[in-house]
């Protein structure tokens, strides 16, 4: 849409007023400018706090941030030291939730875009996905306790927490897979069908390869979501403190599937509200590492999307 210049439409036509704005038009333009200003300020008002807050966080965390902050364990009843144990715990949880959610989510997206007809059954599936995305995170935690910890007998463990996160982040993968698949033109499928390929063969050889990068974008978003969530892992597997080796192979794989673990998000909650005497640097440092992790994963996904759009041939 181009800039619109208000053309004067006045009742009486005379040579003076024909090409200059009259009082009505002037008011109209004024109102427009004021409105644009107010809306612009509202928008900037959302972006500025983000920048301000990030600046404050990074500034306060700066003294504490170092390589050893990442590779050391919390020390001295968690008041000092680094964040190695919770960081590894977060990787565990993300990995498990990804392993559970990615196959189910991608296949569900395939079903919704390729198999589901336009009927009430599909509408219910749609509704279910929307509702699954809207369930409060703490209710997911209760579900995790009821279903995985107690009913499935996993106990409070990495596995139970990972599964809870997987259910919670499932809608992210389903929705983006569906979008990626629906961006593949119908004619691609028709061409393939005409060569005698069955539905699944078409999906496997034509649709999925063309949509794979879009699907990956959704998977990456799921990772960022799972890494940041706290409430669902509260009672399903995350704990205050676990002693973890810092050196050697055992430091990379410190938790078993049935163990409880530390997690970065829960650790941030603990050291800022539950433990007294934690130095500010450690608190802010943990927050900045968590934000950094989540945001860089997100930027990766955005980069992917931009690259995709540029490369698209149809």
């Amino acid at each position, binding site marked *: *849409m181009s800039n619109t210049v208000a053309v004067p*439409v006045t009742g009486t036509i005379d040579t003076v007023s024909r090409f200059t704005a009259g009082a009505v038009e002037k008011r*109209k333009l004024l109102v*427009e400018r004021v*409105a*644009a200003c*107010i*809306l612009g300020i*509202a*928008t900037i008002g*959302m*972006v500025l*706090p*983000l920048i301000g*807050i990030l600046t404050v*966080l990074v500034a306060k965390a700066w003294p504490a941030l170092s390589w050893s902050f990442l590779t050391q364990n919390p020390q001295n009843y968690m008041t000092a030291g680094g964040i190695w144990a919770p960081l590894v715990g977060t990787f565990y949880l993300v990995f498990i939730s990804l392993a559970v959610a990615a196959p189910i989510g991608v296949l569900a997206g*395939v*079903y*919704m875009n390729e*198999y589901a007809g336009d009927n009430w059954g599909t509408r*219910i*599936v749609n509704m*279910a*996905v*929307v*509702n*699954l995305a*809207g*369930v*409060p*995170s*703490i*209710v997911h935690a209760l579900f995790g*306790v*009821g*279903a995985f910890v107690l009913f499935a007998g996993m106990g409070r463990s990495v596995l139970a927490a990972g599964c809870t996160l997987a*259910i919670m982040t499932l*809608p992210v993968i*389903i929705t983006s897979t569906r979008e990626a698949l629906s961006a593949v033109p119908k004619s691609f499928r028709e061409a*393939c069908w005409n060569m005698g*390929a*069955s539905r699944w*063969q078409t999906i496997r*050889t034509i649709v999925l390869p063309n949509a794979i990068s879009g699907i990956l974008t959704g998977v990456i978003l799921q990772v960022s979501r799972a*890494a*940041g*969530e*706290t*409430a669902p892992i509260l*009672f399903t597997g995350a704990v205050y403190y676990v002693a973890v080796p810092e050196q050697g192979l055992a430091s990379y794989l410190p938790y078993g599937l049935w163990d409880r673990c530390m997690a970065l*998000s829960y650790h*941030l*909650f603990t050291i*800022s*509200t539950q433990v007294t005497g934690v130095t500010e640097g450690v608190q802010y440092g943990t927050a900045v590492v*968590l*934000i950094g992790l*989540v*945001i860089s994963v997100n930027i990766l996904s*955005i980069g992917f999307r931009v690259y995709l759009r540029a490369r698209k041939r149809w």
Partner: protein
Amino acid sequence: MRQRFSTRLGLLAEPIIEWTIRLCGWSAIFFVFAIFFFVFREGAPFLFGKLDLTEFFTSVNWRPDSRIRPQYGVLALIAGTMSVTLLAAVLSVPAGLGAAVFVSEFCPRRVRESLKIVIELLAAIPSVVWGFIGYMVLNPLVIWATGAPIGINILNGGVILALMSVPIIMSVGEDALRAVPDTYREAAIALGASRWQLVYKVLLPAAKNGLLAAALLGIGRSVGETMAVLMATGHAVQIPSSLLDPVRTLTATIASELGEAVEGGDHYQALFVIGTLLMLMSLVVNVTADLVVKGIRGKQNV
């Protein structure tokens, strides 16, 4: 086409694969019911056995640990959730919808793309970090600005929740505005409307339902948010009388007490009953938003 299509094995495997895909597709329905079932199941014995529903909804006393007479009234908790959500809605709905209009109608294309990325990043910040910001950064600011004795209260929590729900409102609202066909815009401009007149007289009425759904989804997120309100709104179970009172929400109560409650005890089950209540609330909000959006699709025929 590089591969040969029909091998005998592939044909045999096809029905199995198709059924796996179907099952995964229906899994979302299964999970929603499973969530409801398991949360309800844990709380059911208490709900049907001991809980006095009148007390549950009308009493302000939430004293599950009392040795003499435990009381389970969630009115104060509901008031806590409502007050924080209301403040967040008052702040975030106008800002979010305003930003949606700005980004979709007033912004140059380039600025629009980068603004959308910033908003997306804003939406990605984890709730525990928002809670941390409320607890550590906003807390002293609130004390300094208002002179309140404690900075973690409704005001703090409301501002944090508003910042969290604005990105959702904005992106759903922008989608709603984009969904209005360009012919509407062209017609309005051809009649000599300014851009503001176009927005006010044409786009807002046309996208009304979508914008309403955006607001509802933002509010839904505020109601269900846990970690941020747990850290930023304080812990007093009370009916608030001013913006500077600390309150406790439904979600924060579950998060802070489930760890201490005895498994299978009354208190434990009462928290699951609250969970069921929250689940029902979010279902109502989401289904309403969905129906509101579907409403326009039906009428418009674009």
